[in-house]
């Protein structure tokens, strides 16, 4: 078989390589094809459609529609209801995010420092995350009931007359925020716990030897800086999730009383799926999407730099 042992000419080897690479690319395309098709169908096309529809006065049920340029957006700017909705959403997000993060971090720190009963505490604080939000919102509705709800009954015990939490326009957003914090703190807690356990123990030893006597010193020197990436992730997720508030509003208040708890997604839902003004609602959706994108980019740009170590 000496003839077979002759080395192949260089061109054949390269030809073989090219063919193999082409084959690999073909297989890769095949494997990725379903995903690509579905992404196009269910993400790209709809987003394009929403943007386009935002420039029309399309209403479901009517076949005719025309392009109205920026009319929808102009109308939105002057729409008092939409402005209230935007404001409410911002207030809600600004209330829920910091508390949910602080409580999540605080509980994670407490649990991390404790050796017994960790699993139990973790479970209880995480339970709200794993429970059906619509159902637990209903339970909170009972808890916050002005006359028969436990919250007001306990307050009455201390001589304080509790308000009509969900029924009064002054207290409805704080009440929804309370539910939102209750529901999301556990999620943040788990993320922080993961971040805390990833901190190398030797850093704490070094800090002690270096003179960090108190827990606060160690927190400032080691814990907080090392939690940077986790904190960034938690903040981004929390803000985005709180802007997407919908379930509690639809279940408990339907935007009331008097639009006091009307939030972006609820307004979009009303306009698009109840009043069927699809074009107008699409314009709202575009604004909603823009807010999400801006928020995400802002946070990553601003905070990411402070969090990178090398």
């Amino acid at each position, binding site marked *: 078989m000496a003839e077979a042992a002759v080395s192949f000419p260089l061109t054949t080897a390269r030809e073989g390589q090219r063919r193999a690479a082409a084959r690999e690319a073909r297989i*890769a395309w095949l*494997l*990725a094809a*379903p*995903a*690509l098709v*579905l*992404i196009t*169908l*269910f*993400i790209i*096309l*709809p*987003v394009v*459609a*929403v943007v386009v529809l935002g420039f029309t006065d399309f209403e*479901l049920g009517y076949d005719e529609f025309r392009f109205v340029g920026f009319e929808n957006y102009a109308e939105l700017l002057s729409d008092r209801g939409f402005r209230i909705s935007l404001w409410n959403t911002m207030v809600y997000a600004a209330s829920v995010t910091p508390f949910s993060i602080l409580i999540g971090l605080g509980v994670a720190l*407490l*649990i991390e420092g*404790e*050796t017994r009963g960790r699993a139990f*505490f973790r*479970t*209880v*604080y*995480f*339970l*709200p995350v794993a*429970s*059906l939000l*619509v*159902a*637990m919102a*209903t*339970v909170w509705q*009972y*808890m916050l009931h002005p*006359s*028969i709800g*436990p919250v007001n009954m*306990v307050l009455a015990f201390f001589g304080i007359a509790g308000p009509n939490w969900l029924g009064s326009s002054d207290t409805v957003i704080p009440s929804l925020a309370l539910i939102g914090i*209750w529901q999301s703190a556990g*999620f943040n807690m788990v*993320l922080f716990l993961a971040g805390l356990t*990833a901190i190398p123990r030797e850093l704490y030893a070094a800090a002690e030897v270096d003179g960090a006597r108190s*827990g606060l010193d160690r927190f400032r020197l080691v814990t907080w800086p090392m939690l940077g990436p986790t904190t960034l992730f938690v903040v981004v*997720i929390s803000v985005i999730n709180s802007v997407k508030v*919908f*379930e509690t509003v*639809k*279940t408990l208040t339907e935007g009331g009383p008097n639009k006091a708890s009307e939030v972006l997604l609820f307004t*979009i*839902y009303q306009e*698009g*799926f109840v009043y069927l003004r699809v074009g107008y609602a*699409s314009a709202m*959706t575009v604004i*909603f*999407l823009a807010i*999400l994108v801006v928020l995400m980019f802002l946070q990553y740009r601003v905070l990411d730099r402070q969090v990178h170590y090398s």
Partner: protein
Amino acid sequence: MNGHSLSPARLLRFALLSFGVLIFAAPYIFMISTAGKSQSEIFSSSLSLIPQTWSYGANIAKAFTRVSMPALLLNGAIVCALILFFQVLVAIPCAYATAKLKFRAARAMMALVMLGLLVPIHATALPLYVAFDRLSVLNSYFALVAPFSISVFAIFLFLQFFRALPDDLIHAARLDGMSEASIVARVIVPNAWPAVTAFSIFSVVAHWNDLFWPLIVVTNQTYATPPLGLLYFRAAEAGDDYGALMAATLIITLPLVLAFLLAQKRFIEGITMTGLKG
């Protein structure tokens, strides 16, 4: 950090944690307690946790008759299972190809995935609804499942995970003569199991909880998912029978809570992993 002695710091920690536990668990405690009270007892404004008028039976019966609980739970299970099935089926090959194979669109794929992460269902709902309406597929499992069959988050998660898998694993399989498809099925999937379970938990919790999309596409009670069913129940309830309402919430919350309690470690590992990769 000395966790052995009963120092004042430790006592304080314990006290704080326990106080928090009371507040966080309060809704559940009251839910269970009120589900067993009769109307009169509820409105008598007593703070007693043990129902004096033992009405669990009556309330639960009411819950089951107003809305078909089993049907709701079944729908929820079917929808979540279908969604998860398609998500994983589509995402794994795509993530594998993008992570391990060389093809020119890999970068574009990455960009698409990142963009897709920014787009929630709420942004795409309107045109999808219009399209489904035109195709007359509203009020069906298809409508409930289809838009979620693609999860860019799954692709993202699996991508990170696959990138960390050693290339040699795949080279060895190729040398053994396996086709790419069987590599995916027999090498990648078993090794990706932690990521798959992590994602499953995330997906099931998210879609079990989803109200927005089912609310839009379903008006026929037979296709109602648990959140939707509960809304119907509330509407049918005229809002005053808190006993029955609490019983209904108890029944509806139970499956996921039980699943969580049984598989706590997996749940938390799952969230942790998605968090660390994200």
